[in-house]
């Protein structure tokens, strides 16, 4: 099969890969780059568990084809730690009890990160609206909203 050469940055690494033209970014991250933090929960863009940040924009990696990210800078949940220090969102998710089964957590944190990167002081309503792109089945979202509020105060 014909493959395509794609170069992009993921977290601190620059990678060049030959990929199938229809390979999704989620598959590339999970199966080829061993970055399994992004999860496949629906495979059709309805739940947000696979969210990663592509050039500052939160994207559902199950709906992005890898050839589309040629030249992009991608951040996944594995790339949030800086010099061994957790990102304020990671700290706040732990401290506020925003994590239960954990399957939506990576996507929630990446969605919230993109929000805080573009809006340092979001209102509670803005946080709720933003994370309504992602499904969590365990928490009722209250502690996730509190965690994002707490992280916003720290960044």
């Amino acid at each position, binding site marked *: 099969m014909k493959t395509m050469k794609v170069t992009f940055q993921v977290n601190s690494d620059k990678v060049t890969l030959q990929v199938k033209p229809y390979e999704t970014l989620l598959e590339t991250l999970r199966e080829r780059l061993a970055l399994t933090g992004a999860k496949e929960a629906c495979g059709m863009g309805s739940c947000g568990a696979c969210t990663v940040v592509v050039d500052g924009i939160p994207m559902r990696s199950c709906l992005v084809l890898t050839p589309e990210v040629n030249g992009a800078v991608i951040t996944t949940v594995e790339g949030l730690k800086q010099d061994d220090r957790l990102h304020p969102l990671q700290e706040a998710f732990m401290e506020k009890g925003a*994590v239960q089964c*954990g399957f939506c957590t990576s996507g929630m944190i990446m969605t919230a990160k993109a929000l805080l990167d573009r809006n340092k002081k979001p209102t509670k309503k803005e946080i709720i609206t933003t994370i309504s792109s992602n499904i969590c089945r*365990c928490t009722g979202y209250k502690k996730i909203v509190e965690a994002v509020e707490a992280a916003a105060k720290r960044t």
Partner: protein
Amino acid sequence: MKDDLNIVGKRVVRSDSLAKVTGQARYTADLKFPNMLVAKVLRSPYPHAKIVRIDLKRALKVPGVKAAISGFDGYGIKWGVFRYTQDHAMLHTDKVRYIGEDVAAVAAVDEETAMEALSYIKVDYEPLPAVYDPIESMKDGAPQIHSEYKNNINIHIHIDVGEVDRAMGKAFLVREDTFKAAGEAYAMMEPYAVVASYVNGYLDLWMPNAGPHVRAKALSNMLKLPLNKVRIRHINSGGAFGGRSEVAPGDLVASLLSIKAGRPVKLVLSREENATSSRQVHDMIATVKTGMKKDGTIVAKDFKVIYDGGAYSSTGPIATSIPFYVYEECYRFPNVRYNGYRVFTNKGIRGMYGCHGRAFLAGNEAQMDIMAKQLGMDPVEVRLKNGLRSGEMTATKSKITSCGLKETIIAASEKTNFKKRWAKPSRLKGVGMGCVAIMCGFPMGFRSGSSCYVKINDDGQVTIVTGLVDNGQGNESMVIQVASEVLGVPMGDINLVNADTEVTNLDPGAYSQAAAFVGANAVRVACENARKRIVAIASEKLGVKEAEIGLKDGLAYSIKKPDKKMPISWVVREAFFRGEPIVATGSFFPNIDFEREWVSRPWGQMAGTFSFGTSVAEVNIDSETGKITMPRFTSAHDCGRAINPMAVEGQMEGSIQQAGVAAITEGNLWDKGHLLNPDLLEYKVPLACDMPDMDTIIISSRDPAGPFGAKEGGLTVRMNAYSAVACAVANATGELFSELPLTPDRVMNILERKKGVK
């Protein structure tokens, strides 16, 4: 009871959360092994059909395919939780009974090859007439789904206490209503996945599950392997909610493929397959007849409940009983008759759910409100009057040992100004109250208890080994917290080995709400036994009486003279020198009547204890669209004692989402045997923007047998939140609902019916 606790009762960060916020926590689909194959399953396109022939030859010739199987490669052993419910072969040779049922499977080097190979499997079917509605299914002449069950009645639970007809005849007020509720989707975020690896006669398996020991037993039976050759390993679970309690067809499929190929096999279901072909929730139709005295005392209850059981028995007798029991564990009624029928239909396999019993519980609660109103009482008064208290027996003879029901009713109603608002609902705004009790564990034979091993390592750190399971609710962190309290060692210095059938002993698992009351209790006992050994040596070395030794922050110290102290690691090393390392075991077996049987002997002590709770929902209805919004939701929960209040709140908030808000959005939709909403676009899991403001109130009744007084935490709300919403809608509309969930179309029907009456 000692109340100067060091860490139990504190809002601690869960031990599993670091791995989860960094993306390092491993779930089944994340696993990779050398030479691992990918499996895909061919599913039945028919709701009911005879299998004439399955031909795998062409599929096996596809380059890269390493194994292909059908029911003819298995042993034909049928699974069932009870001897009398063994009817599910999981891969069949005779017929298929629902759309999406597993028929054959392949394992190949990659997903594309596996998909291609599936298209070459040839199955000849002879379609049979099918039946989708339990009422139709019970009629004479309906298609017979299993030959051994007449009229497709899988289970009949008959409970008869006192003299129902006589009491009904003497009652001041009698009312009968029928309620219907659609089954829901578990919709756990992690779709079902399994990795099976068969090497040197040992089968290792990883899959999200609620009870590894029962799973291993089922698989060893179906695969004719000795139990010690089937090892279920620990893996994180992306939610369960009751949907992972039983062995899954995919467990068998992946195992057979791995045995055949001699290589590890991974099977990951799609979201749609997870909905159609893993477990589903029972639809139900409940007829509730109640007799009351003039003062609001319930004198008799008469129930007929029909459960749509799907194609196989599953946890049949339990599923057919639980809605009744969680109700009888909450309210006092001297005369009761319950006829529960679980009926086969040509729909997917079914299981228990967090809010199993929706139509039944919501119906009972809403009917009680209406009857109370007729008698000049309100929901608070009628619940306080009929609610069970500590020391009382339920109708089927379970003793209630600790009970904070009254406190939860009062706390929730005062917080919401309930009485005043219920009495005068403003236009299309209402409040509703739901109460329930939950058994903490139930009879599971010798698997009802739990055991724990603990060893104190040479650096003073601790390893605890238990069969306990965490499906995301925080059970692992909970037992580490308990061990930390007993041993005086920080949580970070305690390692947990759990949910692995080879190294752990039996435990009920994350099933029957037993983790806190049973699993954590065994950990407590084991750690107390280890503590005694530590204290004995420290007492000798420090020259302080044993009773005056305290353990905290990894130190043994004199309570009277705290500067007299030594690290626990020194105590441990001394024990090694003596050739008696500090290891201990502990177990806990709840006080349950093991003569009790779901069908044949439905009476006796159901569980070691019961938790209680009250939820209050506030709803607004849009008269134009029928859409309900929920500004606020309040839940009060007697969980005995919250070991980690932050985790208990999280369970309560999640329950408000999954049972409360779900009452207006969630339900499986069917067109005959086709599930119409198997994905997360069509099936409406509540989002952050759908959630009410939530108040959670924890009531501590301090159970005498629970670990530090703890009981189940959270499921109570998962049961009563649904009733609270239904009752609030009845309050707002002044009409009783008949069908759930309360989607806008149904709400409009209620409003129109109301108008019509006027």
